[in-house]
């Protein structure tokens, strides 16, 4: 395959991933690595490097829009970034230590979990009382805009959320993904932040987490300009178009389609990881 053809096809693939990710709200980052390795036979390390870069682009691009809506809890985000950046550095270090086959197997498990998660709607648990003592001390409790005006919310289980964020950071650094699903889970299910706050705060954190591991990937020579070029531009364009077409609307059919794609990729990744050839 010539460089021109590879760049063209990878741009189309990355655009579709970014578009589907934005339309379904599931993020396109997770299917970039399987697409590059399974379809284009790119080495797993180059694929992870390119994916990390695209994660930073979409998260930073979207953050500008989110910040204006005033949902992001900057204090919660900054506090949890200690956990995610530590985890990301650990994950990037680990990626250089364990083989690509082990990474492929872990990746497939994360893909399957994400597909399962996307079919189960989560319940919101917002209250304004019984905040965790640390949440009061660190002034994490805040307000968010609702149709009935500003609503107070209390932040729960700070240590548990912090620990889960450490895991999200490790996975982000190891697999080159945003770990957005895990971050949202920690924030709205464990720390009881409102959905809108957890989604935007998670997005706010993803870029910082990915930057922590991207530096290590760059120094190690895992970030290949020829691979990252089509991936970054494609994903970013897809995400921007997706956000414009349907901002935040739920699209069950698309979500189901996306989950099926994710499951198929997961099984192929698992097979390759177990048999070798990644």
């Amino acid at each position, binding site marked *: *395959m*010539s*460089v*021109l*053809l*590879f*760049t063209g096809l990878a741009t189309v693939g990355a655009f579709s991933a970014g578009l589907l990710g934005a339309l379904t709200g599931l993020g396109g980052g997770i299917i970039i690595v399987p697409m590059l390795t399974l379809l*284009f*036979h*790119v*080495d797993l390390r*180059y694929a992870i490097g390119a994916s990390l*870069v695209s994660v*930073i*682009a979409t998260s*930073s*691009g979207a*953050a*500008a*829009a*989110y*910040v*204006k809506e*005033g949902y*992001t809890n*900057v204090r919660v985000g*900054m*506090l949890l*970034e*200690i956990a995610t*950046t530590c985890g*990301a*550095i650990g994950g*990037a*270090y680990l990626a*250089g230590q364990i083989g690509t086959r082990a990474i492929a197997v872990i990746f497939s498990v994360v893909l399957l979990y994400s597909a399962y998660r996307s079919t189960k709607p989560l319940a919101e648990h917002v209250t304004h009382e019984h905040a965790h003592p640390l949440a009061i001390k660190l*002034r994490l409790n805040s307000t968010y805009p609702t149709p009935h005006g500003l609503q107070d919310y209390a932040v729960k289980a700070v240590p548990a959320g912090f620990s889960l964020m450490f895991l999200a950071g490790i996975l982000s650094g190891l697999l080159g993904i945003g770990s957005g699903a895990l971050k949202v889970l920690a924030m709205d299910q464990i720390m009881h932040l409102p959905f809108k706050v957890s989604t935007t705060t998670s997005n706010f954190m993803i*870029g*910082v987490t*990915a*930057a*922590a*591991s*991207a*530096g*290590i990937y*760059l*120094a*190690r*020579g*895992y*970030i*290949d*300009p*020829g691979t*990252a*070029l089509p991936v*970054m*531009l494609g994903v*970013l364009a897809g995400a921007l178009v997706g956000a414009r077409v349907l901002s935040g609307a739920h699209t069950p059919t698309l979500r189901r389609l996306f989950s099926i794609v994710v499951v198929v990729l997961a099984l192929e990744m698992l097979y390759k990881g177990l048999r070798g050839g990644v």
Partner: protein
Amino acid sequence: MSPREQQPSARARWTDDEVDQFLGNLLRAGVFIATIVVAAGGILYLARHGFEVADRRVFRGEPDELRSIAGIIRGTFAGRAPAIVQLGLLLLIATPVARVALSLVAFVLQRDRVYVIVTTIVLALLVFSLTGGVPG
């Protein structure tokens, strides 16, 4: 502590919003500049190497010029296309780091000591990682 005191004052909240707006614009500008640089380098790269064979099955690791900040800047001034793309990617990676650095300035101005410490830790971790502090 009464619930009233937990909330930042109206003045501090206004400052928070101002900071958020500024940071949002900073992020967008960073992504925009990085995209322009990556696209420019990419066009040059495709014009010069478009008909070569693309094979990334085998991991070789990037040459030193594309692995360090100094090497990327040197390659960019020499007009080498992969280094220009890499410079764009480096600017992209630097965007969230700049956001954390500016958040630190904002917390210092707000005299929020706890979050000055929290943000300093995050920034130190990022700098540590970007300057190659982690063994590969």
